[in-house]
């Protein structure tokens, strides 16, 4: 979120207030579908295939009614690729008619000239086009062949329709940190605004974390770039772990999970944040009695998150007041304790602990909607009883619900 606090009369710091939670989220992420035409290697929600249990149009409208009553100003809609839902535009219109603003993230596949004109005409809808490389080569390695061209075509259509100030949303990786100035140039070319966010080891991101997360030197480069000229760059306040370098970055510098933000996933599950799709961070479901409002206000998990948290080993660190131990989800999915340093701690305080995390022991996401990859599957041809052999999954996200299920030969 882009936040501006008024100076002057105040009662305690806002960060302290937000740690205690609010009666309604400031904004929330709502993933409308797990279906996606792409299969980005770092997808937070391991999207690909639609889930048959996804909320119906009527159920989505009921959620919007609740958000209106709670005065949630806007929702960040994502997925999957939200625009592939046949009722996507109907839901966008319904939300804005009910005073819930919409920002939606898209890979651009449905942003035709006609759609772009329609979007340009609305004050209440904002668009974020995802782009993870300033060149097709870098982008398509992460987001898939042709995805750079799709994103650029969408940007052209928006600009031609007179939609200024749309967002270009970039997840920062080892391969695109050197392109920061080029991303800014693309944003300038379209009269758009650059938004950069942190790579998380969530969803399929866990599989590529070791290869893609920025090196320590690149983190410093990113921090210096943001301090030098990043005033106009949105960050979703996602780099607060970098404020351990010294000067705090603009924005809210806190983890808002379950306190001021949360995630509603396509089947209505409510998680503490978009980067924490795991049973440990599941607070409830919008289909439960009392709906989203009750989950937000009364769930055990969110209540717990709003209690003062222990900084653990971090509390003795000079940077703790600014970084507050970093990102909960990043720690969790790299196998680190939640009350210790962030895996990308700028002081290097997580390095030893990371070495102690045994390979394969970090928690896996609770749901995986990745499309099946075409890979050779061994066909068992032996007749009669033989020891059941189970190959280890090639990659963590290939794990399926029946993995490990070995029917007993004895019946």
């Amino acid at each position, binding site marked *: 979120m882009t936040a501006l606090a008024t100076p002057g*009369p105040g009662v305690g710091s806002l960060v302290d207030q937000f740690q205690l939670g609010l009666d309604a989220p400031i904004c929330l992420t709502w993933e409308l579908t797990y279906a996606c035409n792409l299969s980005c290697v770092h997808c937070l929600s391991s999207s690909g295939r639609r889930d048959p249990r996804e909320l119906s149009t009527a159920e989505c409208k009921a959620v919007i009614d609740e958000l209106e009553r709670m005065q949630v100003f806007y929702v960040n809609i994502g997925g999957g690729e939200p625009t592939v839902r046949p009722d996507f535009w109907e839901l966008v219109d319904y939300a804005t008619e009910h005073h819930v603003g919409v920002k939606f993230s898209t890979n651009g596949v449905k942003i035709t000239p006609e759609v772009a004109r329609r979007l340009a005409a609305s*004050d209440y809808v904002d668009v974020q086009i995802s782009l993870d490389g300033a060149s097709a080569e870098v982008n398509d390695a992460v987001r898939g062949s042709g995805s750079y061209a799709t994103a650029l075509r969408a940007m052209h259509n928006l600009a031609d329709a007179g939609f200024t100030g749309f967002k270009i949303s970039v997840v920062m990786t080892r391969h695109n940190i050197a392109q920061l100035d080029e991303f800014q140039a693309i944003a300038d070319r379209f009269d758009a605004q650059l938004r950069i966010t942190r790579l998380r080891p969530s969803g399929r991101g866990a599989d590529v974390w070791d290869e893609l997360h920025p090196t320590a030197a690149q983190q410093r480069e990113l921090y210096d770039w943001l301090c030098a000229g990043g005033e106009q760059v949105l960050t979703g306040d996602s780099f607060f772990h970098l404020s351990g370098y010294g000067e705090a970055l603009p924005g809210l510098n806190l983890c808002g999970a379950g306190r001021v933000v949360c995630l509603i996933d396509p089947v209505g599950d409510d998680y503490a944040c978009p980067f924490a799709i795991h049973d440990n961070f599941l607070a409830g479901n919008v289909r439960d009695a009392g709906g989203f409002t009750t989950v937000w206000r009364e769930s055990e998990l969110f209540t717990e998150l709003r209690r003062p948290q222990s900084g653990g080993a971090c509390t003795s660190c000079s940077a703790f007041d600014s970084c507050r131990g970093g990102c909960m989800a990043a720690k969790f999915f790299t196998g680190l304790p939640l009350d210790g340093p962030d895996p990308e701690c700028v002081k290097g305080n997580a390095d030893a602990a990371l070495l102690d995390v045994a390979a394969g022991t970090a928690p896996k996401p609770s749901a995986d909607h990745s499309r099946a990859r075409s890979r050779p599957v061994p066909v068992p041809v032996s007749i009669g009883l033989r020891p059941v052999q189970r190959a280890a999954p090639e990659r963590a996200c290939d794990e399926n619900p029946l993995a490990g299920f070995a029917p007993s030969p004895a019946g």
Partner: protein
Amino acid sequence: MSTETLPRPFDVDAGWRLHPQVSIRPERFGALLYHFGTRRLSFLKSPTLLDVVRALDSQPSARTACLAAGVAAAEIPTYTRALATLAQSSMICEWTGE
């Protein structure tokens, strides 16, 4: 982009109004403000400041709005700074009287 006009000092004796595209959500610390046009969020860090902002629409000037909300005369400069910040981000706009 939209800075053709030079910023003027905040005129506490002019009339001010909440921007029509801004929504207010009261909170225990004050309020959240959201501007649907600029898509920016602001925080009012005290309940009194919220009272001041709410009084703007019915008051001829920001100064009288402060007084109506119970702000002591000596504290008006503090509230003026907060209102100036809100004006800069277009959360409130000057009332031209039409």
